[in-house]
């Protein structure tokens, strides 16, 4: 057993840490306040190769594997959840679907510019009537010669407002449902019939674009079918598995930042003649946070190792997302408590972190769905098939 990072991952973390301290920290509060997407940061990340961190070098990536990608998300999550979310939606689910199930031509055409940040991606699954129940989607795709005609729409699509490429799931055979009747498509957003209907005004991750997409007689060439016709659900579930792991990594960064703020404040703030660090109530909070964060770190990087070595990881990825989001929420809540009234003010980044943390318990499959995934995997090993 070896728990050390390889030299390239140590160097990669150092590079990313320096990048986020220089480029992201100065703008994080502004992104939140002004409801702005960090295009410039995304472009620079692309230039350095970081938007293709986990993809092979032949497709414009860096080839640093899932471990490298988790390091990127942890470091981004540590300073700005919005930026981490933009990057996560772009790499982790949008481009990931093309990497996992795209053919050679699709990878050359789409994955390469996505890795270099010349184009941005989004992932189109959720619909008004199909959130946690992803199989209930209504967007229809009908074959017409060499094309498919898409009608319908998607909601809550992260990066939807500015993406150049969206991987969209649509029903191609209503009779078959999720198993065999759903297909994934690569859609370019400048095609006729594609429009952005609105962008959400949100409590947290305000530096992201969460858009409603509308498809009206959107013509998609058959060569843009991602994977096989009828197997879209498999493509999307595989992408979500990867996304869940790295969302857990971003939460790890957020929780780590909360712990660092708490320690710094406990060292300086005096009450009743002594620093908060000497108060047992504060010590216990910090000990709890630190322990949960260590457990999460072990989980995240172990799952990254499972991915990089080609082992099954679905159940553990669900644990990463569920546990990670809850550890982050708890840690940020505790650090806010330690900071008292000041934690609520915009002079500190804690109130932003508090608002930003909440979404992690919801998107990429709610934590309730993650528990179903975990429980069904456990029961399946014991011969019981759980019905949703």
């Amino acid at each position, binding site marked *: 057993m070896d728990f050390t990072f*390889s030299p390239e991952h140590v*160097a*990669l973390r150092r590079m990313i840490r*320096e990048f986020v301290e220089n480029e992201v920290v100065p703008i994080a509060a502004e992104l939140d306040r002004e409801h702005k997407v960090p295009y410039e940061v995304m472009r620079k990340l692309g230039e*350095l*190769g970081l938007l*293709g961190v986990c993809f092979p070098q032949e497709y414009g990536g*860096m*080839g640093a594997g899932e471990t490298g990608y988790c390091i990127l998300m942890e470091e981004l999550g540590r300073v700005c959840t919005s930026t981490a979310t933009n990057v996560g939606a772009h790499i982790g689910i949008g481009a990931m679907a093309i990497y996992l199930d795209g053919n050679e031509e699709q990878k050359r055409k789409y994955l390469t510019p996505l890795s270099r940040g010349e184009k941005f991606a989004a992932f189109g699954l959720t619909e008004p009537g199909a959130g946690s129940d992803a199989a209930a989607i209504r967007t229809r795709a009908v074959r017409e010669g060499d094309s498919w005609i898409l009608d319908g729409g998607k909601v809550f699509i992260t990066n939807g407002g500015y993406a150049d490429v969206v991987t969209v799931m649509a029903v191609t055979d209503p009779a078959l449902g999720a198993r065999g009747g759903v297909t994934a498509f690569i859609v370019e957003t400048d095609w006729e019939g594609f429009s952005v209907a609105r962008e959400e005004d949100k409590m947290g991750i305000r530096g992201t674009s969460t858009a409603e997409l509308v498809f009206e007689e959107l013509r998609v060439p058959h060569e843009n079918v991602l994977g096989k016709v009828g197997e879209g659900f498999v493509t999307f579930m595989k992408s979500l598995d990867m996304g869940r792991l790295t969302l857990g990594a971003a939460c790890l960064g957020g929780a780590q930042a909360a712990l660092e703020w708490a320690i710094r404040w406990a060292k300086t703030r005096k009450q009743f003649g002594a620093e908060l660090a000497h108060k047992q109530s504060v010590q216990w909070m910090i000990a709890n946070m630190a322990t949960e964060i260590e457990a999460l770190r072990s989980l995240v990087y172990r799952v990254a190792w499972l991915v990089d070595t080609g082992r099954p990881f679905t159940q553990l990825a669900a644990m990463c997302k569920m546990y990670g989001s809850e550890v982050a929420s708890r840690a940020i809540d505790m650090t806010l408590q330690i900071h008292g009234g000041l934690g609520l003010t915009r002079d500190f980044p804690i109130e932003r972190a508090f608002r930003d943390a909440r979404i992690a318990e919801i998107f990429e499959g709610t934590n309730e769905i993650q528990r179903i995934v975990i429980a069904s995997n456990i029961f399946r090993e014991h011969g019981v098939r759980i019905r949703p």
Partner: protein
Amino acid sequence: MKVIVILGRVLDPRGIVINRRRGRIFVNREEYLLQPADRCALETALRIKDGMGADVTALPRGPLPDDDVLRQALAAGVDRAIYIVGRADSPPYDDAAWTKVVAAAVDRLGGADLVLTGATTLDTGQGQLGPRLAEAMGWPQIVGAWTVEAVDGKVQAVLQTGEDYVAVEADMPAVVTVLPGALKLRYPDGVRLVDIYRGVGEIAAALEQWNVADLMDTEALVPLLERRGQDFPPERERGTRLAGTVEEMAQAAADALRQRLRR
């Protein structure tokens, strides 16, 4: 044009705690950084390369226990890096002894038009290597430059003396030391970084290892420096509290800042 840049490392000060009362330094995280002034020298070398297509080689500042700073330099864009290892039983090298090693390495590399390194080190505050090397090579030296440019066989630099900036020029080959904070080092290229740390791809061949014993007679390397103990520098002075009207305080603050700039 051939440029050689000499790079060293320093313990990351964020990972250490200094206890003055007990006269000890506690290392919590043993992580090393590229020396801040050497970072600026590296960026200077890379800008000269961008501007006029120089060939840049990195050498280590001192006998380093690993080649990490050289890999960082390769990831950032240097063409070649030579990791120089010493004999395990050799005496500790100081700047005087290491200068001889570097001079021999520069000779082995077939000379250079320009050697760049940091003007000072973050930990010991020494800036001897550059000047000593220039003396050893018999080359002109420019010490503590903000900007460096190579034009028509000459190297031009801007130095700061008190309040003023001074433009100076020297014939190449020359040694120039660069001030910390002069330039911001570019981010490494992701693919080069992964490849050089994995030791794969074309870039892997750009990192070579030489032995001091192959460069020179190691018996000649006698350090001038002897370490007899350690002490802390005096505690840094605290800020001053200003009094008076707003205008008076603003004036006093402006005067103090001007004074500081002059230093």
